[in-house]
Each structure stands twice: as C-alpha cells, then as structure tokens.
C-alpha cells in the first residue's frame, strides 16, 4: 500500500471554506497512560499558564486583626518615607496574604515527611510547620506578647519604636514567642516582605511598581539589545509588569 505522503505529522486537517482547526497533538493510541509525544511538536491554541492575578478584595488568609498586625510589621520592615511607599502601601501584606492562601502557604512541593529532628544549620530548615501554620501560630504569640508587654495593646497599636524592639528581638532570638520560633518567623516574614515589595505586581504587592521604581529595575522586560553597549547610562523606560503598564492604554481609551 502506498502511503499518501511522506509526512510524519499527525495534524488535524484544516477545514475548507470555513473554520480551521489548528489543534495538533501527536497521540499514540493504546499506550501507557502517558502524555506521549510523537510526530510533531504539540500545539494547542491559546495554551498558556500565566500567573493568577491576585485580585484586590478581601483578605483570603488573614483574619482582620492578623492583617492589621502584618500590615504594621511590613511597615516597620520597609517603612514609608516621603519618596517611596512603605511595605503596607506597597501591598506587601496583601502579597503575603495571597501567598499564604496558596501553594506556598501549604508548603506545596516541599518534602514534608517525618521525622523532624532539629539538625545543624548546614542542613537547612527542618520545621514540620507550613508557612501558613508558622504565620498563624506566630501572629497569635506575637499578639499575646505585645499585650503582655504593652498594657494590653496589640502589635498594630503600639508605637513604632516598640514595634521595632519586638522585631529586633525576634531577629536576634532574644524575644520568645511562646512555643513559636520567633527567629524562624522573622526570617520568613522578612523574606516574604521583600518578595512582596519586589515581585511582579500581579501577585498583589509592589503596587504601582513602587519597589521597582525605587531601585530603577525596569520589570518584566525582555529586550535590551539597544542598551547593552550603553555603558554607565541610565535606562530610560519606566518599569512594566506582566500585566502591563499605564502607557499601554491610550489617552482616549
């Protein structure tokens, strides 16, 4: 039997006169329940896995008093000044909230099998707690500590200098957060706050790309061919996020 053509592809044919199917998969029938690729590079129209947009809206993870405390915390870690917003206005608490409500909060992908003995510093974090658990537990303990030390006021209500004292104490390990590990909480909070300040705005932080503007990072750009040779010169274009920047919309739009 002569084969009709020598093409190795298994494209779904286009449709004459009218619509066109452009979905192409190489599929081998009767096989090992795998996604098998054979014959052509797979393709399906519109296939994309962009980041989920962390919408504005209510808190997804934090209870209201937790949110207040976290907003206060991020505003001390990255305080506001006259030029650049602080952690709170930059959306760091929103960022952390969305992260804790998602795979990061559940320690998705992390190896979480027991046992969890403490190891050497070289062996890395051996905590059995997910980030969500660490935050929840630590915020409760921090709140209790603050009320003990500062006449019944929660962390968000006390003076900034007192907040700094508590934070510094967690950082150095001198402040005990009950059974929670204050140092571990501090490290994660600091890391997440920085992430919130500098990650793409689609994740809820770095509002209006304030973090990027502060340092001069142009964001999700992909073409600097015209700039690699311009040594010691400021890059002139404003930052852009994955979901764009204001200039994408014309004045009449």
């Amino acid at each position, binding site marked *: 039997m002569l084969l009709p053509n020598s093409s*190795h*592809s298994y494209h779904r044919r286009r449709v004459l006169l009218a619509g066109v199917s452009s979905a192409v998969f190489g599929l081998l029938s009767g096989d*090992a*329940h*795998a*996604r*098998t*690729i*054979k*014959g*052509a*590079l797979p393709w399906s129209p519109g*296939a*994309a*896995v*962009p*980041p989920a947009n962390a919408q504005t809206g209510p808190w997804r993870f934090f209870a209201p008093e937790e949110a207040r405390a976290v907003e206060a915390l991020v505003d*001390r*870690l*990255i*305080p506001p000044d006259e030029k650049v917003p602080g952690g709170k206005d930059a959306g760091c608490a929103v960022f952390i909230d969305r992260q804790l409500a998602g795979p990061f909060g559940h320690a*998705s*992908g*992390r*190896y*979480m*099998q027991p*046992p969890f*003995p403490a190891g*050497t*510093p*070289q*062996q*890395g*974090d051996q905590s059995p707690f997910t980030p969500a658990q660490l935050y929840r537990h630590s915020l409760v303990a921090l709140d209790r500590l603050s009320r003990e030390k500062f006449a019944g006021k929660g962390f968000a209500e006390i003076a900034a200098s007192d907040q*700094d004292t508590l934070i510094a104490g967690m*950082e150095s390990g001198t402040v005990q957060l009950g059974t929670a590990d204050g140092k571990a909480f501090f490290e994660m909070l600091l890391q997440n706050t*920085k*992430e919130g300040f*500098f990650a*793409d705005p689609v*994740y809820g932080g770095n509002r209006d790309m304030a*973090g*990027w503007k*502060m*340092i001069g*990072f*142009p964001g*999700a*750009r*992909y*073409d*600097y061919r015209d*700039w*690699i040779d311009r*040594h*010691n*010169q400021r*890059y002139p274009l404003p930052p852009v996020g*994955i979901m764009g920047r204001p200039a994408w919309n014309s004045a009449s739009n």
Partner: protein
Amino acid sequence: MARKLPATDVVVIGLGWTGAILSHELLQEGLRVVAIERGPWRDTASSFPPGYAPDELRYAIRNGLLVQPAQTAMTFRNKPGQTALPIRAWSSFLPGNGVGGAGVHWNGQTWRFLPTDFVARTHLTKRYGAAFLPSDMTIQDWGVTYDELEPHFDRFEYLCGTSGTAGNLQGKIQEGGNPFEGPRSRPYPTPAQRQPYAATMFAEAAKELGYHPFPQPSGNLSQAYTNPLGVTLGACTYCGFCERFGCGNYSKASPQTTLLPVLVRDPNFEARTQCEVTRINVDRSGTRATGVTYVDTSGNEWEQPAAMVLLCAFQLFNVQLLLLSGIGKPYDVNTGEGVIGRNFSYQTTSTVEGFYDNRIFNPFIASGANGMIIDNYNGDNFDHGPYGFVGGGYIGMIQTNGRPIETTPVPPGTRRWGAAWKKAVADNYLSSIAFFCSGSEYSYRDNYLDLDPTYKDHLGRPLMRMTFDFHPNEVKMSAYLTDRAAEIMQKTNPRQMVKHPRTAPYSVVPYQTTHTCGGAIMGTDPKTSALNRYLQSWDVSNLFVMGSSAFPQNAGYNPTDTVAAIAYWSAKAIREQYLKHPGPLVQA
C-alpha cells in the same frame, strides 16, 4: 503488577541534554527510541513565553521549573557519623525537571575542561609529587583525553551555536581568547556576546594586572544561527531572566531549541512524559538490562522492555536509580570499596562584592553566560608549589541578572530591615557588582552518595543520602582565588569591597551552583569506577550512563560542554562498536 509493553530498541531515561543527544544519535542508526521523562513536556511558547517568563517570584524564588522535593528529595550531612536530614526545599543546588531538563533553565555557560583536567592524578603527581596531594583525596584520571574529546566538544558547540572567541586554534594562541584553553579545531560558530559595563571594567583592570581576559563562551547566542540539523536559534536580548528560567525567544541553547524539533519528526522516536522510571531491570545474571519499570501519574506501573538502556536522568538521579536498581557495587565509606556513590564532588564558588559611587551598571541588562573572564588561576595553569593546594578556577565579572528579590546588595553592617536598609538598597542597586570565582572540587574518600536509612520518597523507596563537605584543599584554593579577584576589583576603585571566600562547613542553605558531579564515575579500573571510558557500565554491558555523574572529580568550570562531549564520545562508540558487537567494549 507492572503491565508489559511491546519491546523497543532503546529506552532513554530522562529527556534532558544527554537524553536528547543520545536519542538523536541512535535514531540515525535506525533504532527505535523511547524516551521516558519524569516531568512534563516543555515548549517555549506555552511553557515560558516572554509574556510571563520574566517572573522572578515564580521561577527564581518558588522554583517553578524544578523538580519538587515532594516528588524526589535527598538527605544531607557533612560527615559520616552525622545523621543525615532531608533537604526539604532546594537551595544550594536546583535540580531540573521536565523535557529539556536543566538544559531549559541553565545559564548557557559553555566551557571545555582543560587537557590536564582529564589526567588530573597523573599530571599533578608528576608535577608536584604524590605527597603534595592530601592522602584522602581520591582524584583519578578519566580514561579519556582532551584530544579524544575535542571533536565532540566541537560538535556540541556547533549544535548550540555557542558564542565565543577562540583562544587556541590548532595550537596557535589567538588574541582576545583564552590562552589557556585546550586547542580547538575551529572557531566558535558565532562571535562572542556583547558585554556590559561591569565586565569591560573587569577586563581593563585584569589586563592592567597582566592577565588575559576573554569573553565567556555563551549558550545565549550573539546572533541568529541555524545549526547542522536545520534548527534555528535567535539572538539573545540580554533580558536578565536566564538561570532558573526558560528562554522565551529561542536564543538560549537547549534541547528545545537545538534537537527536539528534529527528534519528534522521526517516526522511530517517542517521548513519554510525566512517567517516573522506578527501576532499571536486569536479568538473573545481573549483567544484562532487560528494560525499565516506570509509573505514570495514575500510579499504574509499566514495564518497557528494551535491548539497550541509556541512563540520562542528571547526575543525582542517575546515581539514585543505580542504587535503587541494585546495579553496581554501592560505595562503602568504611572500607573504601564499591563504586556507586563514590567520588561525589561539587563546585567551589566564591564572590567579591563591590560598592561604587557614580557608576550605573544596569545589572538587569544581562545574559546567563556573558561576562569577561580570566583563566590564569584555573586547573594547573599556575605553579601551585608555594601555595599548598591543588585545583583552581576561573575568575570573572559575569552579569547574569539584576532581579530585585535576589539582588539587594547593601554595605556590611547595614541592618537587614528598616529605613536604613531601604535607603541602602535604593542607593546601591545600580552601582554594585560582584566578581565571581568558579573553583574546582576534587574528590575525597568521605564525600559520597548512598541510600538513606530513614527517609523515603513518595513511592516508599529510600531517599539518596549525600555526605559532603569542603576540604581544606578547596578552602585554601577558594581563599586564594578570592584574593586574586579582590586584587582585580581593587584596581577599579570601588568605594568598598567585601570578600566572600567559600569556607567549610558546606551548607545546603545558600544557593551556590547545581554542578554536582560523580557517583557513577568513568575510569579504567572497575574497582574504582562504575563505567568504562565509553560510559558503559562495567557490570551491565547494555547500560550506558551519561552526565556529570561520570566525572571522577570536578574541574574549575561549568560541566555542560564536557557532559555533552563525553555523551557524543560515548554515542560514537555505541554506533561504531557496540551496535556491531554488543557486549563490553573494554576488557576489565
């Protein structure tokens, strides 16, 4: 009970660089090839398009392209006698996943090892005497020479379109290239990339000090290029989202951009994705592989019989699978016997930070493999006699990215948070850089891999256990290299400079590099190596094991070019010798 599938000629375990290279080579012999990949299919436009590839949080911080420790992890301890604990999240090294493997998200740094690196023991003993080497250092000669590998380095570089300036063309030293490199038969396929400010500043200072700076050989191309298979790559746009990221515009050499388009068109090739090979099966004699067993995402077990098995799953997972399959004698640190897990090595990296006034370095204008380098202190390129250590590395100004979550350099003593930190970050982001040293890592008796007694993977099998620490030789070497880098930086008049030499103990916490090596090394003696010089298992003659697991020790360079060269070298032996006369290619 595994369901048995129709037999095929070749099973390739893992479809990364070596899996793609070997698949292509064997398809040219008309063999049927089934490549089984644990991770997903990856394609530029749907997996990492420019529309969402430049996402630092997703790919650099949350490790979006890497294998997840929940699927496979390992345990770690510095010394035998300690209890190893799981590496619960990757940090020091970042194992890849999916079709293309780490070839998708590597930096593209494409280095040939030095001729002396392949005969390390012989050469160093001859020059410095056996007593100069630490008694517990277990370095070995590879069993293959640079000259034998040269055509295969060339092959990989022309597959990729590697961008560079040759330093040694057929023995003649070339201006502007690396004068220390082994002789190459022809120039690079494309010219070197353009360099940012900091790299040219490094080069000027290095020249003033009498060194020989040259552009780093780059797998991020300086111009569009069509490789010998007809596959076209584009020109790198210096986007600064290279390592840990897939390239969105076809300008980073990867299996996707060099080989896969041709592989899939061959009717004898089939890729099965999201299937995890759990065992290489051997017959009752233990000398012949019969195929592999794998598990799909539904938990179904399948047996794929094959005449030949190629293990291409990355250094760590190669060793893990050999141990779990019971192939080769596992290494015993107490007796010093055994070969699987023996001679595990890493890379000794260090940096020098520099803070400047009134300079705009634009760290975000970057490519994974650009930069100006000096090789004067690599390998045995200098006389080690006065210094009491062996090994070395390259020193360079390599600007791979300025991604902000990862890049907030502040002068030492700056508090890590608060108004002062915020100001320091704002003041220093554009005007700070770091020089980088990529040092060798020789092998030792007590740096090795074996199976963990306690922790299991999601299939209930033992995790692999890594026992590793930096030895005094490497610590001395790193201090020396870092000091040399600091001298160069001093010439550029920074406001402040901070040295960060690598010190013991090794920690899995800070990111260093993913250049893990050894554990299934090649050599001439089956007592001290797992593979012969053609990467053929001494124990199972129809099993060949690719990757840096074959390196008896690591040199002062990134491994990929050498990994590819020995893969092509092995493929040549398979095609010209093994297929004609299956069986051991080397008599033990």
